[in-house]
């Protein structure tokens, strides 16, 4: 039985944790490091920071967050958002990230995957695919936070990315992200069955049964979770300078039943999915 990873995904804008619905409609929830620390203590298997608006100003604050996280949290950290060149990737890895997630940069320049795999090792390169279901049932890859179409069919692109050297593939359903309506199982399974490397499913978890389904039916090797955890954690973390009312947030994502990571993992374990127990995360503190 393989052990599945549960990965809290934190979208970051201007130094804040944010969350949108269908990759837009951004709401500020608080400081990423506080959420990250809580998730690490509760048994997160990895963390993923996605820089939602990648600008020069935004990049510096992101690097600070990466450095602070890497000194305090000793679990793998993936960072993505606006990485366009080998130097961009090197910069986040040097700051303390273990893996770099790339999307737009490698759609525009697929050779970047091969160059980065050569320079840093395949295991450090995660190709991130944002997928939108088309009328004919196929899935098309999008870039720029789900705004621009690429004409690339998702499974074919995933296979090509892996052939070029991607160590993992992360698949996000743009249609489902933030809605709490569940992962797109067909999308995830089609990619998971097509590539020989681990596949991380992202986008759509509203309750633990969704996470269970994307593992057992979607064949995901790892699961990215955002709203499901953030909306719960946000109620206990002091939110300073937040321009958001949690009640307002919940109205946008009514189908999300927030819970903490330990409860999520306990659910999965009780339903036959092997994951690192949340309790052992504290054993040696």
């Amino acid at each position: 039985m393989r052990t599945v990873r549960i990965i809290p995904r934190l979208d970051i804008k201007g130094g804040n944790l944010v969350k949108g619905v269908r990759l837009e409609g951004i709401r500020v929830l608080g400081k990423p490091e506080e959420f990250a620390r809580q998730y690490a203590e509760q048994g997160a298997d990895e963390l993923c920071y996605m820089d939602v608006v990648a600008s020069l100003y935004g990049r510096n604050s992101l690097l600070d967050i990466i450095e602070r996280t890497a000194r305090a949290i000793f679990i793998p950290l993936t960072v993505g958002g606006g990485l366009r060149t080998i130097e961009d990737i090197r910069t986040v890895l040097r700051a303390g990230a273990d893996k770099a997630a790339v999307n737009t940069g490698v759609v525009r320049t697929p050779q970047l995957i091969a160059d980065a795999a050569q320079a840093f090792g395949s295991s450090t390169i995660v190709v991130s695919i944002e997928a939108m279901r088309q009328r004919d049932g196929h899935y098309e890859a999008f870039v720029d936070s789900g705004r621009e179409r690429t004409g690339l069919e998702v499974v074919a692109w995933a296979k090509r990315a892996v052939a070029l050297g991607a160590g993992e593939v992360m698949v996000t359903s743009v249609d489902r992200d933030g809605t709490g309506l569940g992962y797109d199982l067909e999308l995830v399974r089609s990619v998971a069955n097509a590539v020989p490397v681990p596949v991380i499913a992202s986008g759509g978890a509203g309750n633990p049964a969704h996470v269970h389904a994307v593992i057992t039916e979607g064949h995901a090797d790892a699961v990215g979770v955002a709203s499901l955890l953030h909306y719960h954690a946000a109620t206990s973390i002091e939110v300073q300078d937040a321009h958001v009312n949690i009640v307002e947030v919940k109205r946008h994502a009514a189908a999300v039943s927030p819970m903490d990571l330990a409860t999520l993992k306990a659910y999965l374990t009780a339903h036959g999915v092997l994951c690192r127990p949340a309790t052992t995360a504290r054993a040696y503190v």
Partner: protein
Amino acid sequence: MSERESITIIDYGLGNLYSVQHALHAVGASARVSSDPSDIATARGLVLPGVGAFGVAMENLRSRGLLEPLVRAVRSGVPCFGICLGLQLLFSVSEEFGAHAGLDMLSGRVVRFPGSVVTPEGAPVKVPHVGWNRVTFTVPEHQDARGAPSPFDGIGDDAFCYFVHSFYAIPNDPRVVAAYAEYASVRFCAAIAHEHLFASQFHPERSGALGLHMLKQFVAYVQSL
């Protein structure tokens, strides 16, 4: 620890050197990253990290003049901790991309996980093995002559550590195996303890509090000599 007494993390161009360094600092050790052979010769303890290809690693160690100082230091009794590829390099040969000779400090070979294993639900078991996995620590029969505790002492059941690898080592002498894990229907060597030579297939610097605990015990071992 003073400069002369520090741990040297060997930089041969591969591996997440700085996360290893951060982790050692977090447990109170003074650790330097270095590709200078004299820093290997004067170190009180060594860490051999590694992520990437076996053949490239051996070539890098050789071309940077690090191979002989490393082997000499270990043979003279300097404690060494190998991580991930750093465990595999200790062995005789690897089957990655042909056959490559390793450091041959331990007799055995390195082979790839099978690529066509499927779970009962029909999900493919992927290679590389990426993620946390249960690690069962055994009591090695080769204890250090002074009875000093190894980094893997006292770790109970239900230990989970973080792995990223496509290959695993098969030691000829099972007594050097300090821990086992299971993946793709293979029960494989997850850690090594042989006199003052230790290694883990998993990444202790990415294995949360448990990993830091093992690194802390390695530092204590180094300081006890």
